[in-house]
């Protein structure tokens, strides 16, 4: 079956809240409401024609207006696959600290979802309700914030371990005079500022070599190997 057949089967089943199939995408996907996610996945897993035995991946994607959770399902028996999405709208002023979207967990259906959902909680701060073991997985349990959010603030240190590039080594610190806590960074800025303004991230188009032609080309008179290309 291809994605269209699976989608029509899914939409034809009792599952409500199943959106249309976006066939223009490279991997056609179906958007379902968070409320009907579990029934839809249950159907896809158990239906004899779909038989999505394997949940490849659970991904949360932060967009401007929402957080999407994407499920990549595939069937070993029938050798087809489907992408399922569910969206949680961002409330007005929903920031990294204030907004924790909630999506039902599918860990009861797929054991593989357990770790994937924990990872998405850890890195993007998406809470999966009814998850059996809702802890952080990669970062330490006491970590502050969810680093893959766009407005994440980089920490200076964690658990006594310095994370800054210019931090004073632990064994050179003077215990008697504790240093002042460093000022918090503005949100979204990287740990290390670019070394000089010229070498910022290449932007759209970058600096084409043609732009740097002219004056810069030859270094000294008589040297004709300036343009090596």
């Amino acid at each position, binding site marked *: 079956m291809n994605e269209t057949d699976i989608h029509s089967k899914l939409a034809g089943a009792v599952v409500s809240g199943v959106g249309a199939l976006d066939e223009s995408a490279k991997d056609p996907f179906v958007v379902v409401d968070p409320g009907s996610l579990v029934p839809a996945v249950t159907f896809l897993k158990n239906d004899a024609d779909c038989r999505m035995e394997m949940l490849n991946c659970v991904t949360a994607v932060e967009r401007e207006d929402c957080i999407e959770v994407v499920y990549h399902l595939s069937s070993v028996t029938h050798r087809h696959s489907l992408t399922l999405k569910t969206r949680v709208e961002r409330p007005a002023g929903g920031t990294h600290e204030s907004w924790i979207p909630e999506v039902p967990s599918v860990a009861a259906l797929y054991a593989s979802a357990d770790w994937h959902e924990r990872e998405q909680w850890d890195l993007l701060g998406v809470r999966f309700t009814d998850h059996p073991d809702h802890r952080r997985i990669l970062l330490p349990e006491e970590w502050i914030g969810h680093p893959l959010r766009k407005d994440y603030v980089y920490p200076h240190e964690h658990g006594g371990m310095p994370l800054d590039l210019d931090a004073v080594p632990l064994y050179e610190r003077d215990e008697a005079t504790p240093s002042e806590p460093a000022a918090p960074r503005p949100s979204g800025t990287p740990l*290390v500022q*670019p*070394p*000089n303004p*010229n*070498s*910022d*991230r*290449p932007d759209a188009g*970058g*600096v084409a*070599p043609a732009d*740097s032609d002219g*004056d*810069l*080309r*030859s*270094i*000294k*008179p*008589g*040297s004709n*190997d*300036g*343009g*090596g*290309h």
Partner: protein
Amino acid sequence: MGAIRDYFGNISSALTTAAKGMRITWRYFKHEPPITIQYPRERVEPPPSYRGLHILQQDKCIDCHLCAKACPVDCIEIEAIHHGRTLEWKQFSIDYKKCIFCEFCIPVCPVDCIHMTSEYELATEDPDGMVEDLLTWTGLRPEDQRAVEAAVNKKKGVAAPATIESAKGAPEPGSAEDKAAKIAAIKARLKKGSA
């Protein structure tokens, strides 16, 4: 009956497989010579395509910063003052604390002036000793100095000084000798750093 067969089967398989394994290790012990490369005494040169330390053909470089932009880890720092077409070099350093030897700085160069050598030994005791300046000279070379002065004087309306002598004796930029000289310079610097 099966259990008894298993019992004796276990004994025989344990003894025979152990003996077979021991035959192989004996063959290695007795007949196969060691394959070790005794590193400081002998060494295998990496292939010519190896991505080792960088060298810069400073004559060619036009201070376009494309390599620094292509670098995924921002390890290249370039600083030069432009006197028209002439460059007064301050810095062209690669921070090997960050460099991942990915080679992205090589294909972007419009004048093909930065290359990677087959050198790789960089161990040092100094935490700041891993930033390598690729420049073989800083500032302006004497003839460039004179050319710049001449240009400045010309603007001011002063008569030009004596004719510019072309640099003699220096190896042709990009030639094999040039590369060898630069590698020697890198090695000398490394030795200095580790001492």
